[in-house]
């Protein structure tokens, strides 16, 4: 029971990170129908940007308040990652819109290889460990010499994710940009006819996707305290699994799928085998796609994004 509770806390933390990345996959798939293969690497790059911003703030500028530092790091990572994804969309995907179906996917795979190798070449292939940004933990329950704890880091991740999801929901549901996005997702030609700037909307979708991935990247860096150039692939595939599990194109589905994948992964590691935890995630991907291709929340006729 105590182990289960502890894993539940860990799983939701991990799941929040996956959910934030999964939103990027599901939004881009919803609006232009492509699997943005490079999204995992955009996430990895954002963690590197956060790492550099953090070192710059603490070591060079001497910001001592950790709350302030984290806040600035988050903003900086979101800004730069959005810029990166905006350029990627302009350079690698926009010229291929309307081309044959595999072209954007191949271009995205090329972009993914390019990004991870760019980071490897520019920052070196080694792990980048940083001292823990935030320390401290609360003991929630102490029974049979097993303490169920929740660290401050986990609390921050839960809080930031919740706040951002609310902001994001507001953006999609209530603002003109969100309306344009939903319109483009349903019918691009019609949206263009009634005056929606489709190109701009798609660009903004990539920017938002990158901003959320940057939040996930910053949280990932803060949680694990280490990042390396190859860290984009596996979290990327898992987040994609989350998007598929929740029903690709469905935003609540992406978040819930992310939480489920996070929980399944931590539970699997705790009760079965930590070596095969990736196999669990990949198997869920395959099983979902084979038996439940529309996912938990994706219905073909339902309003998406």
């Amino acid at each position: 029971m105590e182990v289960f509770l502890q894993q539940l806390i860990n799983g939701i933390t991990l799941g929040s990170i996956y959910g934030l990345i999964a939103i990027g996959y599901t939004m881009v798939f919803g609006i232009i129908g492509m699997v943005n293969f490079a999204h995992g690497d955009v996430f990895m790059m954002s963690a590197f940007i956060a790492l550099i911003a953090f070192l710059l703030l603490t070591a060079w500028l001497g910001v001592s308040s950790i709350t302030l530092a984290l806040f600035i790091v988050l903003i900086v990572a979101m800004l730069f990652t959005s810029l990166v994804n905006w350029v990627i969309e302009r350079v690698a995907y926009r010229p291929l819109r309307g081309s044959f179906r595999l072209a954007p996917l191949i271009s995205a795979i090329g972009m993914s290889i390019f990004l991870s190798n760019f980071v490897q070449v520019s920052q070196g292939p080694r792990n980048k460990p940083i001292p823990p940004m935030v320390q401290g933990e609360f003991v929630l329950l102490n029974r049979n010499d097993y303490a169920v704890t929740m660290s401050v880091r986990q609390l921050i991740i839960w809080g930031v994710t919740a706040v951002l999801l609310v902001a994001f929901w507001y953006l999609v549901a209530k603002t003109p940009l969100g309306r344009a996005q939903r319109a483009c997702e349903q019918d691009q030609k019609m949206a263009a006819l009634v005056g929606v700037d489709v190109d701009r909307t798609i660009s903004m979708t990539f920017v938002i996707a990158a901003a959320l991935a940057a939040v996930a990247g910053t949280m990932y860096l803060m949680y694990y305290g280490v990042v390396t150039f190859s860290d984009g692939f596996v979290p990327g595939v898992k987040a994609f699994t989350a998007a598929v599990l929740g029903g690709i194109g469905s935003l609540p589905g992406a978040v819930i799928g992310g939480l489920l994948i996070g929980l399944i992964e931590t539970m699997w590691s705790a009760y079965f085998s930590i070596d095969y935890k990736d196999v669990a995630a990949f198997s869920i991907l395959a099983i979902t796609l084979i038996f439940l291709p529309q996912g938990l929340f994706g219905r073909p006729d339902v309003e998406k994004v």
Partner: protein
Amino acid sequence: MADGASAQRVDMARALRDAGFTAVLALGLLLPLIGFQTITDTRNNLVLVTRWPLLFGLVAFVGIARFVFSIAIAPYLTQRRERPVAASSAARNWMRKWFVSFSIAFVVAYPGIVVLLEGFAGAVKWIDNFGIQILIYVMLGWGLNIVVGLAGLLDLGYVAFYAVGAYSYALLAKTFGLSFWLLLPLAGILASFWGILLGFPVLRLRGDYLAIVTLAFGEIIRIVIINWVDLTNGYAGITGIPRPTLFGIPFNADDNGFAAVFGLEFSPLYRVVFLYYIILVLALLTAFVTLRLRRLPVGRAWEALREDEIACRSLGINTTNTKLTAFAMGAMFAGFAGSFFATRQGFISPESFTFLESATILSIVVLGGMGSQIGVAIAAIAMIGGTEIMRELDFLRRIFGPTFDPTQYRMLLFGFAMVLIMIWRPRGLITTRAPSVFLKERKSISGELTREGHG
């Protein structure tokens, strides 16, 4: 005349503005990761160092490149696009007719040419690193071409079957001492068995979803290989895999070795040349079988499936069987290539079967032009030969200093090339479609006119 000059000047202003904008953008993109470098200092702390010269050098380079592009290259491209396509000349037809025969003659004679040019010692590198390495990828590309190019099923986990072939050969040869020639077909059969096994559940999926599930299967097989240490020795891999023999004659320096039996002086070259011809024959076999299969009902069913699955089904074609045969055939050739890879290296580990490998093979097929055998071969030569040749570029070290290692940038350029070629020619290098069956006249059509991959 005056108008032309003013238009020129406006263009110039616009080019400058574009260049400035691009440079600012490049500054934004490169500032975090190029401007700063994270390094571990002597006390094992991560510290930042700046690289302003590199950052501003790159930003200036990007800006200038953009400027040159808009004033020189872009007008040229528009001009070329407006020019009508030249009718194919007699010389071009002649070249097209003899190109394949000439290429095959060249690859057969390649070891001889290299030995003449480089001598015995120098030739090993050229045959091994270029000849064999490229031919393995040509073969893998042709094998995947059956699945992706002919049947239109996007497979991102092709390397799994390559791994099955390699591990089948390595384990069976080491455990039971069976010979390469017996295990080569066996490895192919085992791989195609796995192809059917994995293919069965996934074939009802379409397009992108199929791609992702095959990727998942590829990764699962790799993780199992890593973790099943009792069987596969995990990360450490399998060493001492037996080498192939020529009718029982090994290629070593012993008394019963190849050199001694034929009364020659021992040289590692003989084994390399022998391996070269094995992979050449295997690759040509793949191409030949594929060409023949295209004319059989199953091959035509593959191509019909690629163009339109619903039409295919309404004509009474069993799409499940058709897809499964494509999967199994593709996997079989990967299995052959895998067992050859194992015997050539003498050592295999899960490192050789990562997703990157699948992506490389897929990009070769797509860049070459899906379904085109010649295109795939050209793409394999360009991509693999291109990355191999980067190891040889000594003059770069002279420019950028002795610590400069060009091989580091291989994958970087590889990814960049994939994106660029997709933008330049989304349909691949060779896009024409020649029908395998025709009524009166064989007409090639452009790939632009066909739909594909909706299967």
